[in-house]
């Protein structure tokens, strides 16, 4: 297990993102360490060779990402009968219909809150556990394994397990809450369902963050830690002023991953939690796309929604890279 963790992207000298960046170069004999200047100046015998190597990846991205995106943008301007017999160009009508709908805006608001809370709790709990596990000397392999294996659970299964914990009739968490006078009604009460969704989504994502934070922590040189220990007695302050800034690249990478997770990958959890019937329960924007497109067969409307979602992610990513990454120092 120890070797397993050490081999994760953030190897000793590098960080998660650096590890990813140099990944491709590594294949051509470049050194594994990020930031190694020699590795970045690999020369190819023919100028076309790199493109040849990139081609399979580009082909996959084109077929599975660009092509559907183009189609989505196209059909978002049409109103179409599900079986494809006729489609009418309606211009921006699908967009204005969606954006004028109070329901849609309510779902967007919930998605924002949901994403913020899931990202915050998944990151902070993951970091806390990583810091604590990093300090453990005896039996740390078993602690780490126990913390990591939740990650192996598929989202729908996580949703199912979570649903059992929150079941109206037999859920242990519901019984526990009843002791404290809180009658949790998942599927019936909006905020109770939201609470259960957030708990299960956070729980599912903690191990992932834990793995990255732990390897990030293990990548901080002992010399730096020792020097810091000599300068400052407060462990808490040392963490804030020395360890956390050194973890920043990992944290930034995880921030993006977690936001994407909360926006998109929680679909399985939500689907299982609302049991196929959203009713008055909270749902996220992605789930709404699914409901209108796949269950309601309204292709134009749901295409418009997915284009809106694409734009949100696009803006969010630009924002993250422009404003947050500036504050992150890679080595």
């Amino acid at each position: 297990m120890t070797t397993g963790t050490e081999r994760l992207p953030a190897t000793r000298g590098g960080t998660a993102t650096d590890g990813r960046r140099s990944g491709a170069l590594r294949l051509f004999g470049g050194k594994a360490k990020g930031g190694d200047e020699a590795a970045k100046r690999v020369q190819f015998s023919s100028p076309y060779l790199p493109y040849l190597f990139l081609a399979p990846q580009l082909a996959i991205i084109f077929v599975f990402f660009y092509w559907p995106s183009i189609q989505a943008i196209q059909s978002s301007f049409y109103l179409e009968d599900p079986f494809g017999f006729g489609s009418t160009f309606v211009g921006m009508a699908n967009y204005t219909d969606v954006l004028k709908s109070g329901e849609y805006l309510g779902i967007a608001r919930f998605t924002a809150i949901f994403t913020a809370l899931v990202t915050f709790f998944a990151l902070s709990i993951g970091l806390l556990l990583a810091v604590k596990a990093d300090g453990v000397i005896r039996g740390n392999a078993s602690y780490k394994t126990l913390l990591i294996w939740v990650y192996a659970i598929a989202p729908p299964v996580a949703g199912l397990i979570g649903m059992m914990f929150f079941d109206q009739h037999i859920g242990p968490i519901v019984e526990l809450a009843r002791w404290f006078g809180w009658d949790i009604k998942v599927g019936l009460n909006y905020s109770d369902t939201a609470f259960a969704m957030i708990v299960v989504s956070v729980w599912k994502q903690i191990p992932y963050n834990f793995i990255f934070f732990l390897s990030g922590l293990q990548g901080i040189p002992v010399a730096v830690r020792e020097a810091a220990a000599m300068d400052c007695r407060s462990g808490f302050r040392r963490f804030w002023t020395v360890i956390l800034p050194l973890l920043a690249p990992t944290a930034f990478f995880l921030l993006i991953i977690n936001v994407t997770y909360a926006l998109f990958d929680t679909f399985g959890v939500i689907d299982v939690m609302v049991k196929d019937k959203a009713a008055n329960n909270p749902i996220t924007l992605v789930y709404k796309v699914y409901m209108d497109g796949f269950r309601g067969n309204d292709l134009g409307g749901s295409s418009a929604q997915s284009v809106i979602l694409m734009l949100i992610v696009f803006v969010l990513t630009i924002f993250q890279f422009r404003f947050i990454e500036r504050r992150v120092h890679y080595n």
Partner: protein
Amino acid sequence: MFKKISLAAFTLAFSATSSLAATDITWWHGMAGRNGEVINEISQKFNEAQSACALTPVSKGTYEEALASGIAAFRSGEQPNILQVFDAGAATIINAKGAVVPAEDLIIKAGHTFDRNAFIDGVRYFYADSEGKFVGMPFNSSAPIMYVNDEALKKAGVEAPKTWEEFEAAAPKLKAAGYIPLVQSQLTWQFTENFFSRNNIQFATNNNGYDSVVDTTLKVTDPNLIMMFDKLKAWKDEGYFAFYGAGWNDNQKVFEEGKAAFWIGSSGSFGGLQKTAQMPFSATFLPYWNAIEGAGTNSFIGGAALFAMSGKTDEENKCVADFFQFLTSPEIQYFYHKATGYVAITKAAYELAQKDGYYKEKPVAEVGIKQLMLPAGDWSKGYRLGFYPQIREIMEREYGRIFSGETTVKDAFDTIEKEGNDLLARFAKTAG
């Protein structure tokens, strides 16, 4: 001896070639669990009964998923021969002119006779066009009926109610005896769509949507429907009705455990309930309001129908027609009725079950079919509304809000009517 062997060899060779030459047809459905197994058994029976066609059933998940897969497949020219489409999705597929071959045309073209009157009344119109021609072949058909906890009735000293007025009178006694008087599993199907059918009230303009998609609007702000939900809300506040969300099983469970006196479920729930119910139970019709004039008519058929997708060869269509004939034969209908709890859809099958003494042994199994055979009213034949799965979602959302106290009954129905009408108008544009 030699003759015998050569004859056997010849027969073998012949049967081998004939099975090789069999026309393959596929059937996509949205059934799981025991109901999915029964579909496999029926297909097997069909394949054994003849050798010209080989039917392969494929489960596509839920009803909604089956419809979505069918649509996606149709658009890419890979559609199955037979697609199972549920009641709420009927308008989507029937209004897509050219997506399906009407079942009646298909059967007649294959040289069989088709008699609409062979089907029981409640089944005849729902999947038919406005002239009564069968577009879809009704398959698994169910009716919303009321299951009764016999123990609870005995303890409280009340009778199973026929009307909601009778229920109101019995509810305090049931509550005093320690029971939840009423639970239900699907407010959309049981208390909205079939509220209109049982009480014979118009659901939507344009003859409940059958006559045209253009300018069809919902009539869900009908004062009687609002009264029904006002009552449900009041009953909930008084402890006469309990609501556990839109999930079917969360609500059924309370009845299975013997905690509730009445549960509105599906006639198709009978098979499963026999295994899970922890107390003796019986069943009766879905109650109606005595105060509403003309109430007490039959209910809409629920469940799903089979549609023959277009764009297939004559050979394959002939096989589909043969299969539809096979499926509606009394023996197969009776087998399906017994194996799943869905009602028999032909009069002949119903008579066969009666003759066989099945209903003496299992009286509950007869309730659904009897309810479908009640006299029909002007508004109990069916509805044909586009984007109806989405309209149901709006209803589910608003009903959840009513019972969690986020909205009033009046506001909820105003919202449903407004958003529902927007969707209907949108659908009219796609179909036009």
